[in-house]
């Protein structure tokens, strides 16, 4: 008789106990839906509608068609992606050995070197780009505006994004694995190929994504080092600021996002393939 009611009261108490915490997220859910999800939907709405006779909005794909018909714009998009890919490759060829050499040093030296490589990231990106402009002005102003200057600037600004993730995975590899490989007769090169590289591939891939994404969309670097050359970021900016053609700007942004998404998914896929390969071998 006495047992029943007590139990229910305990249960009720427990319910009350958990519930209040789930409400803690409400301000964030409001923020998430109003400032993150709705803006994305708005981009899509703007890209596929056109205003006709005052207040009527009609579905249209005209902006997308227009974009692919303007060869100049398609070329800008292709240029941006090629420049970003070259930047990513150079960052990888500098960043990987750098991260690898750093892990071979004493722990305290490692900490200092990582700090030195990442410290400039805390300085405003525009200022770092301006610094390169000043250097080019000093050495040879004719270089400004070339692909070379743009790539140097992008490698400079985005290199830490490549070094950090690679360093993080490399520093976690157990040094005993290298010894084991050497004991089993593996040459330095073979150890690198069979041990180091497969174990660090996840860092490489996240480094690639972290460089490729901002490099493909930057507005700042082409402005200072490209002598106001138009890349895809600038093109979107102009659609919004100069011509006020927002639907077109939104459509270009969607095309850009899709291309980048495909590239990111492709890199992710590479990672999975590697894992499958490893599993199969094991």
């Amino acid at each position, binding site marked *: 008789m006495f047992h029943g009611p007590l139990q229910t009261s305990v249960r009720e108490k427990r319910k009350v106990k958990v519930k209040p915490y789930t409400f803690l997220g409400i301000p964030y859910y409001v923020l998430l839906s109003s*400032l993150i999800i709705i803006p994305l939907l708005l981009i899509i709405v703007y890209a596929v509608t056109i205003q006709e006779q005052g207040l009527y909005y009609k579905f249209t794909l005209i902006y997308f068609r227009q974009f692919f018909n303007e060869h100049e714009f398609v070329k800008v998009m292709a240029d941006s992606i090629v420049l970003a890919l070259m930047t990513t490759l150079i960052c990888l060829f500098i960043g990987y*050995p750098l991260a690898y050499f750093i892990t071979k040093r004493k722990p305290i030296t490692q900490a200092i070197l990582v700090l030195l490589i990442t410290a400039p990231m*805390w*300085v*405003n990106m525009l200022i770092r780009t301006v610094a390169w402009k000043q250097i080019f002005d000093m050495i040879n102003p004719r270089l400004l505006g070339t692909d070379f200057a743009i790539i140097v600037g992008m490698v400079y600004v985005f290199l830490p994004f490549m070094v950090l993730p690679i360093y993080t995975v490399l520093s976690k590899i157990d040094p005993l694995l290298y010894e084991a490989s050497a004991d089993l007769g593996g040459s330095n090169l073979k150890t690198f190929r069979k041990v180091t590289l497969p174990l660090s591939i996840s860092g490489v891939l996240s480094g690639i994504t972290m460089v490729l994404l901002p490099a493909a969309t930057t507005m700042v670097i082409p402005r200072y080092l490209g002598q106001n050359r138009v890349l895809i970021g600038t093109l979107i900016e102009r659609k919004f600021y100069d011509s006020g053609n927002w639907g077109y700007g939104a459509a270009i942004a969607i095309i850009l996002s899709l291309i980048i998404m495909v590239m990111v998914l492709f890199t992710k896929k590479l990672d999975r393939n590697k894992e499958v390969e490893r599993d199969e071998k094991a």
Partner: protein
Amino acid sequence: MKKHNNLLSGIFIFLVLLFVYAPIFSLVLFSFNANRSLTTWGGFSFEWYGELFRSREIMNAVVWTFIIAILATIISVIVGTFAAIGLSKNKKLFRNVVINLNNIPIVNPEIVTAIGLLLLFQSLKLQGGYGTMLLAHIAFCTPYVIITVYPKVKSLDPSLIEAAQDLGATPMRAIYYAVFPQIKVAIFAAAAIAFTMSFDDFVISYFTAGSTGTNISIYLYTLKRGIPPTINALSTIMILVVTIVVTLNFILTRKQYKEV
């Protein structure tokens, strides 16, 4: 053989560091240049520092950069931390959906986030200015707070809060005494990330600040007649502050290492 390799890798590291620090060195050097040129040396002077502090426009940009960064950090850390705690008590499906949505602005190009917010403010007929800029900064900082704090909250023992409440704590007190002390480090890390993201932001600010709002990046980007040496002076001061903060942080964490 090993020594030989060490030397080669040392040279490589040195060259990369040279590449990293040469522009910064030249930036600092020419902030002390007596003439206006940024490429030829005309003697030592503090002229540009004086001019920097007299320039209302630059000072205004610097002050607003700080105001926005501080407010955005405080708000996004509070909202994000509470959300992280709340999320850990939600159902798994809901959590996964939220975390995936949360990652959208992190993996999306900044310019896409920026025009999305611009379209939103425009549709709401909100005049671009510091208000919209602050909202935008909160919007892109909070996801970083969540991805920093949430994993830490999730790793806590879920019975912790219950234990606190069984001992008579109200829900808020339970969080304050049982949860906060354990996620403090993650909250500080999140605040540091949010602050630097906001302080250095250009693209999103540029699209959401309208014609009235400004910050350091917008000021630099919209300069009409090239870059004056006052910018070198400003950069030098910022580099000095960053160096001090980073060095202090290094010394402090180094002590921690030793204690462990």
